[in-house]
């Protein structure tokens, strides 16, 4: 167990010192690469196409200004001046030298951050809604539970060598903003008929080469039973999960092959045993964590000149129309800071941008920042009277792109520009699509749409869940892109379906353009989003638009 606060952490320093010795032993020949590889992966160190990559966890996306400044320091001092927000609320540094990584881990440990279990067949970073503790529709703040799960799962002796990696997501609201249906375990906070707080528990969701939407294994789990129940799920999976084939080793396959009812029986039986040995320490810790994540002292004051500024400044009005979310406190909003500016690699953040956001969170945002799984940053608590001043600061730094949820807000994995597993590039495709629709000046007309791109079947870009998904493949030595339609990770979870053959890189923009033109023609009105039109009309009209020669 370790302290969650953003301060020097001796436990993490100890882990870093351990890794420093392991690096030294690798360099002096005492450890072979085969011996060293699992050790470096346990510390988030991958070897990618051009360099090592360090993946640092941003637990449930929550990060303090001081921690953000350390990420900026890592980017500046040991990398090439930037980092990359991932779809699982981590940050990846693309260019560290192996010999520098222990120093980077020391710097992280000094603000309570780490890269533990950001790789390997372990329980990974627990993710949640970037608007946790702020959203108007929230049942309860998911962060105390996410932190409880992190403390329990970090270095959990029983779960260091699972059949495969294991991902947990928690939604604090009925409206899922954490993609719980595509996780190994998904948890949705809710109240039962008696008004008691608990979780709806999903298992067996996942993307990759066999995309499956999870299933509800428990309709209502009392909140006090969270750890023993999650432990029972993972213990059952640890025994039943396949270890003979890594492509069939995730819990989604275990559930699909054995059936939900069999898994439920084993989980419930195991739960009885596990529940009996929990002494209540977890609930004491949970109570402390609730205090730690208590709401800040919100100001109770008028909106100032917010509406006047909106009326007078079209760009500000556009920003507030697209990038704000409803807040539970009167006078407050949550602000999405887009890292999808024109020409920008989706999710890449420079050290200067990170430092600025840290300053702005201190000046305007109750010292709170979130990294969202759509590769943007959220300032969760901004009073409307501060919004214009905040906007002006963001605008001056190129961070006021008014495109949250629009067609240029594309989710993309690093693809073959960085990743050793990739089969094609993602970044240039994302940039070209965004540039094309900006040039056509159609973004606001098209409205809300979710495009997601992965550079290989492992689906880090969550392409299966995109309203329009794009998967980059290697077809006989040429990059080729498979399009899927109708995916959704939020309202009505669904895996996108293939309309037909893929396209070479130079034809992808034209293909997306034809789909969008069809949508603009077919939609009932401007309120009907692309995904709504797709659900109403089905694949056929979009397929006909995509392959006109076959129509």
């Amino acid at each position, binding site marked *: 167990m370790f302290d969650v606060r953003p301060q020097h952490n001796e436990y993490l320093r100890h882990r870093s010192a351990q890794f420093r010795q392991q690096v030294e032993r690798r360099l002096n020949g005492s450890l072979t690469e085969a011996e060293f590889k699992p050790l470096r992966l346990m510390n988030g160190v991958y070897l990618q196409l*051009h360099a090592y990559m360090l993946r640092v966890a941003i637990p449930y996306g929550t990060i303090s200004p001081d921690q953000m400044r350390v990420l900026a320091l890592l980017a500046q001092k040991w990398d090439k001046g930037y980092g990359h927000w991932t779809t699982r609320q981590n940050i990846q540094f693309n260019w560290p030298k192996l010999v520098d990584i222990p120093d980077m881990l020391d710097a992280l440990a000094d603000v309570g951050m780490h890269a533990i279990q950001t790789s390997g067949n372990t329980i990974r970073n627990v993710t949640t809604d970037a608007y946790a503790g702020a959203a108007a529709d929230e049942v309860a703040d998911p962060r105390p539970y996410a932190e409880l799960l992190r403390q329990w799962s970090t270095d959990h002796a029983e779960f260091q060598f699972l059949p495969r990696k294991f991902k947990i997501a928690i939604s604090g609201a009925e409206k899922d903003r954490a993609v719980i249906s595509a996780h190994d375990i998904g948890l949705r906070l809710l109240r039962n008929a008696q008004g008691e707080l608990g979780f709806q528990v999903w298992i067996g969701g996942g993307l990759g080469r066999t995309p499956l939407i999870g299933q509800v294994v428990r309709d209502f789990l009392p909140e006090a039973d969270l750890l023993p129940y999650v432990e029972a799920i993972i213990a059952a999976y640890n025994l039943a999960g396949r270890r003979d084939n890594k492509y069939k080793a995730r819990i989604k396959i275990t559930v699909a092959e054995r059936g939900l009812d069999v898994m439920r029986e084993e989980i419930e039986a195991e739960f009885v045993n596990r529940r009996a040995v929990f002494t209540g320490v977890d609930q004491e810790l949970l109570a402390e964590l609730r205090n730690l994540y208590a709401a800040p002292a919100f100001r109770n004051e008028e909106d100032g000149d917010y509406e006047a500024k909106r009326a007078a400044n079209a760009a500000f009005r556009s920003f507030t129309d697209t990038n704000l979310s409803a807040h539970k406190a009167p006078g407050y909003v949550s602000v999405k800071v887009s890292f999808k500016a024109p020409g920008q690699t989706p999710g890449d953040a420079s050290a200067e941008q990170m430092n600025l956001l840290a300053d702005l969170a201190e000046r305007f945002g109750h010292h709170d920042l979130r990294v969202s799984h759509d590769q943007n940053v959220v300032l969760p608590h901004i009073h409307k009277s501060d919004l214009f001043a905040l906007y002006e600061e963001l605008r001056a730094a190129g961070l006021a792109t008014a495109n949250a949820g629009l067609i240029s807000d594309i989710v993309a994995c690093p693809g073959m520009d960085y990743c050793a597993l990739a089969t094609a590039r993602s970044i240039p495709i994302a940039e070209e699509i965004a540039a094309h629709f900006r040039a056509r000046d159609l973004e606001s007309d098209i409205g809300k749409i979710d495009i997601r791109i992965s550079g290989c079947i492992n689906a880090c870009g969550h392409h299966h869940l995109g309203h329009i998904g794009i998967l980059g493949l290697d077809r006989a030595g040429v990059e080729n892109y498979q399009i899927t339609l109708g995916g959704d990770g939020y309202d009505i979870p669904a895996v996108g379906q293939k309309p037909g053959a893929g396209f070479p890189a130079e034809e992808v923009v034209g293909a997306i353009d034809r789909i969008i033109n069809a949508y603009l023609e077919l939609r009932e009105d401007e309120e009907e989003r692309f995904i709504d039109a797709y659900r109403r009309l089905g694949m056929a009209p979009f397929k006909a638009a995509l392959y006109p020669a076959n129509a």
Partner: protein
Amino acid sequence: MSKPFTPTPARPAVITANDLRMGHCVWMRDGAWTADPREAEIFEDEAIADLAMLDALSQANLVVDPYLAEARRGEDGRPEPTHFREAFRRRGPSNYFHGKQAEFEASNV
């Protein structure tokens, strides 16, 4: 990592890996390693390539995961990649001009 490749005179190969300490791409020439892909030794004979691979694997204190990558002989006689993955490894990422290879190319064009 690419699939194992067996070179022939018609389909030659180079040996490439990542530098252990720094992580950047390197290519083998005369049993040593260079960051310049154009300096890579071209293997056209399976037996010679196998011996060179044994040598490469024995240098685990310098490089990680060496492998044979298909190449062709360019007009200047130097090796060129046949697959886009190897082309990207030479050139660096396409979104920024700052990979080690890009720096190398910038100073040698």
